């Protein structure tokens, strides 16, 4: 077992156990913290897959921004007070659907002949990524910045206090 596979196994155990805790817990704050665990373990797996910049963005946005936002929303909406009614009636269907998705995709993954490469190529650096982003991908990049701006304005407008123009 080489170091890459060992790191991947460790991080994927952490990620899956975080996801299981998120799916089963009765306490929504524990759910948010286990989601943070899963996202940070996923960032580690991104590093294993030699995508260092994406891992940094993942830690910055998910670990820094999204989890804090989720915790604030949980605090402001008293989400921890309805502990007994946390799951709805379609729970058996949900269990069946998720097991079906997992088994079907695992079967497909294991049966397909993947055309993977045998030796490692050149690692992708941040310089390559930035140059590519600002030449070939400049239009999607600009569109995504407009989407972010619109989402920000929309969030401010929706969350604005009523009657206070």
């Amino acid at each position: 077992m080489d170091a890459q596979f060992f790191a991947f196994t460790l991080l994927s155990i952490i990620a899956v156990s975080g996801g299981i805790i998120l799916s089963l817990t009765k306490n929504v704050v524990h759910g948010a913290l286990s989601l943070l665990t899963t996202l940070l373990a996923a960032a580690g797996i991104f590093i294993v897959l030699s995508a260092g910049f994406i891992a940094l963005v993942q830690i910055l946005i998910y670990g820094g921004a999204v989890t804090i936002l989720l915790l604030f929303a949980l605090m402001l909406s008293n989400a921890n007070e309805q502990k007994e009614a946390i799951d709805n009636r379609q729970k058996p269907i949900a269990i069946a659907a998720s097991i079906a998705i997992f088994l079907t995709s695992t079967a497909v993954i294991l049966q397909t002949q993947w055309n993977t490469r045998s030796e490692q190529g050149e690692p992708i650096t941040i310089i390559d990524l930035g140059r590519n982003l600002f030449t070939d991908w400049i239009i999607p990049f600009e569109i995504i910045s407009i989407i972010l701006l619109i989402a920000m304005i929309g969030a401010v407008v929706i969350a604005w206090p009523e009657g206070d123009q």
Partner: protein
Amino acid sequence: MLELQHVLILSASLMALGVYGVLARRNAILILMSIELILTAVNLNLLAFAYFVPSNNLTGQIFALFVITIAAAEIGLAMAIILRVFKNRGTSQINELNTLRN
């Protein structure tokens, strides 16, 4: 030796857990967290293919970057909507938000 299949199976299990959360939970914020789990599984798939499939373009990594950006925009907007619904209706349980039914 790490193979493409290992990463894809991890991604499938995270996806299944996220789908379970979206379908089974009642709290809107927990549903959003499960959606984040699904998007992370998608990113894992994109980066795994970018790493293992023979090509020298960066499309996988750049697409993962776009997915993270869209997820951030989505979560900000969804939080604003959930807090507004909570202020108006006093709940964030989705089964009590049925005013469009009658």
